[in-house]
């Protein structure tokens, strides 16, 4: 550890337990931590929880989770982070799905990188892809990965394959395991996509990639897969 002013490392350090070490007092209840992190407690009580959390790796993690979830619940005040749990809304979902083009993703990824530098926080998902609910084709045929999970994907020929309903074309979106976009493709006519080796070049051995495909059929109807996870060699 040579950079004591590296905030991320200090955050990591506060969230790392030392075997056998115990915090000074009993941990507040989870709901108290959540209320404190959301600014819902009176100042004196909140600051007591802050003091405890800074001395307790478990409660540091709990506080940070409560803060992240509060931000997510508020949607960051931006429509780019549509709030999950919203009941399925087909029209809105289709509008979001149409915006999900490679060019758009690239712009948003760049914007997310800038935001990352600006606020020094974790990785941001540039835009939430459309939800699966309400977008299935008649018959509800699911999209299945055909990638063999028992073998790592060779990074010089990382071919993602899947099967699903009859569609006009496919879109694919690939990220690292911390959801940083690394590749995408639009309008594929075959249910397969070779991730460009250069997109994988910076990832360590055994890295996991997260991918999702969208089948587009007539009248722009979309079937969106769940998120698949594959391991690289």
């Amino acid at each position: 550890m040579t950079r004591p002013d590296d905030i991320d490392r200090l955050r990591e350090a506060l969230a790392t337990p030392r075997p056998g070490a115990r915090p000074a007092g009993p941990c507040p209840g989870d709901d108290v931590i959540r209320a404190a992190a959301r600014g819902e407690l009176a100042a004196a009580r909140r600051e007591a929880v802050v003091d405890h959390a800074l001395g307790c790796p478990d409660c540091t993690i709990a506080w940070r989770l409560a803060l992240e979830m509060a931000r997510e619940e508020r949607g960051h005040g931006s429509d780019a982070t549509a709030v999950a749990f919203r009941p399925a809304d087909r029209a809105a979902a289709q509008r979001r799905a149409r915006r999900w083009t490679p060019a758009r993703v690239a712009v948003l990824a760049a914007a997310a990188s800038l935001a990352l530098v600006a606020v020094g926080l974790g990785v941001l998902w540039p835009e939430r892809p459309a939800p699966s609910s309400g977008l299935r084709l008649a018959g509800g045929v699911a999209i299945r990965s055909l990638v063999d999970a028992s073998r790592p994907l060779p990074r010089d020929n990382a071919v993602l394959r899947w099967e699903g309903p009859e569609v006009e074309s496919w879109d694919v979106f690939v990220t690292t395991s911390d959801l940083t976009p690394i590749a995408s493709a639009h309008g594929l006519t075959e249910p397969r996509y070779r991730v460009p080796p250069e997109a994988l070049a910076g990832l360590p051995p055994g890295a996991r990639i997260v991918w999702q495909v969208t089948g587009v059929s007539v009248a722009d109807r979309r079937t969106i897969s769940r998120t698949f996870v594959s391991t690289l060699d």
Partner: protein
Amino acid sequence: MAEDGAHPPPRHAPGWERFEELHDVEGLRRSLLGCVSRACPSWLSAQREDIVQAALVRILEALRRRGESDRPLPASYLWKVAWNATIDEIRRATRRGERGLEDLPVDPPDRAPRADPGTMHASAALGEAVRECLAAMHRPRRIAVGLHLLGHTVRELMEMQGWNEKQVRNLLHRGLKDLRACLRRKGYER
């Protein structure tokens, strides 16, 4: 049939289909994965997808137990249910990680924590040093730096503490300077 890596949705769970019809489950999965990834230290990072997957199942179970899984519910209520489920799963994963660290000499390699134990010990030692430094700091600076280390932005500090921007920036500037100086005295050089 080949299947992809280890995180199929719990479609076997009773009521799951209805739950998916009512709510944007894929969006929720992404939201939770983002939250867990940003909130958890790297020594838990290998488990974050398992945490989210287990949390999703717990959310459905909780709603089913209360007879609430088959109707739309307010988002704020569902986020509260999601909080309880996710923090429970993180605590379970944390206990596994801590146990792994304590048991390291006798654990076979495949049960050892997936984070590097040497790095974890170094990080834990730095954490102790940071705590000692914070404890010696003037209270407003400690609260400002502490909240910042817990993840809050300048704007969030202003809202939470009722400080203006200049106050927040001053407290953070001076507090972080104190912290750096204190860590240097403890041997943590840049």
